[in-house]
């Protein structure tokens, strides 16, 4: 099986990685780059725990081959905070208690961040639709939705 020498920008840093054909983007992030924020949940695009931004758009990293992302830019939950400052969505999750066990949180944050990028003033229905691919088994979603609403009201994201 051939290896692919790829160049990918992850959280603003250009990385050169040798990846086998059958390695997923999620495996590359976690095993090669030690970015363990994105989680391996279902491995089938159902749970969203592995959600990352690929060229600015959220995708399930378990369903992308690492070899596919040659030349692309990836942002993981580790890349949301800037200069030690939590992003508006992260801060709102803290303040609203949108976290219990935390397994879904990295994916939730990425999906919520992407929603506010494309729609800075979402309705509650729009928030729930945008998070339909991110399963949370703890919170019942109420506080998560409230956190996204709070981040939206806070403006800059």
């Amino acid at each position, binding site marked *: 099986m051939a290896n692919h020498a790829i160049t990918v920008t992850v959280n603003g840093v250009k990385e050169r990685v040798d990846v086998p054909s*059958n390695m997923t983007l999620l495996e590359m992030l976690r095993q090669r780059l030690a970015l363990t924020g994105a989680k391996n949940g*279902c491995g089938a695009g159902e749970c969203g725990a592995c959600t990352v931004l690929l060229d600015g758009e959220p995708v399930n990293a378990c*369903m992308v*081959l690492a070899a596919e992302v040659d030349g692309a830019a990836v942002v993981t939950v580790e890349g949301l905070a800037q200069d030690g400052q939590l992003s508006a969505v992260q801060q709102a999750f803290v303040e609203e208690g949108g976290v219990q066990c935390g397994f879904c949180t990295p994916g939730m944050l990425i999906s919520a961040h992407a929603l506010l990028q494309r729609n800075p003033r979402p309705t509650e229905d729009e928030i729930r*639709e945008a998070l339909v691919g991110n399963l949370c088994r703890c919170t019942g979603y109420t506080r998560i939705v409230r956190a996204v609403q709070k981040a939206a009201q806070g403006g800059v994201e």
Partner: protein
Amino acid sequence: MLARPGLVSFDYVRARTPGEVVQLLAEHGADARLMMGGTDLLVRIRDGAVRPRLVVDLKHLPGMRDILYQQQAGLTVGAAVTMNQLARHPAVVAHYPLLAQAANSVASYPLRNRATIGGNLCNASPCADTAPPSYVLAGRIVVHGSAGEQEVAIADFFRGPGQTVLQPGQFVTAIRFPPSPAAASGRYLKLGRNKAGDLAIVSVAVLGFPDASAPSGYRFRIALGAVAPVVLRVPAAEEWLAHHPPGAETFARAADLAAAAASPIDDVRASADYRRAMVRTLTRRGLNAVADTIAAPTGSA
């Protein structure tokens, strides 16, 4: 569901030309699998349902990710256009809104960034969301193979669940839609177990437009998803609608005819009886919604 181990070993190739794909398929035969968004293929590889030696990525072929619209020629959608691309493209939203509605109803937003219209159609699931709109919009599948390019009408493309007319060595490069009839209105109605994010239990696409050659002044096209081995058009209901004035009674009768045409199965998502009942409900709702927004026939038409 437990997290599953990694993918079996295979080689990955990013194809650059259709000729390269033809050659790779000729060399590797059934050991090669074609991929675009990977949302179905990678799950099937992980489940062990398929064990390819070679995965050929088609989405970087010329034109595969482009949407072209011309008033005269209609719409050409590259096979690797994603659901989100389709759902927000201005020409699709303006001229083929039910295709945008269907694309926007697929799974979740992140999945829609990867899932493609070509993959949705080629997997030939009876509940594929882009299939019923493609029927009522008279879509044509552009098939590439060793003999070059040919077009297949959508109604001739599916053979059964998971089966299409594609032969070994052939692949889909685009889907073409003729210009929508003048003053047409369309709706895609989908029933899932949840409001969003689920596969269709039943789906119905309705297109209506004024037509002076029809005794009622209108023509309607109806396509049903997830209630037969392949998508069904409902000629009996369409004939009825062409011959009877639009209104609640006509639509109720057409909805009965659509329910009668369906041949659904019982499965984990719904019973056959429930599916049939929902065909009736969604067809009636679709007809009402289309009739409300369709332009009145003009005397000069």
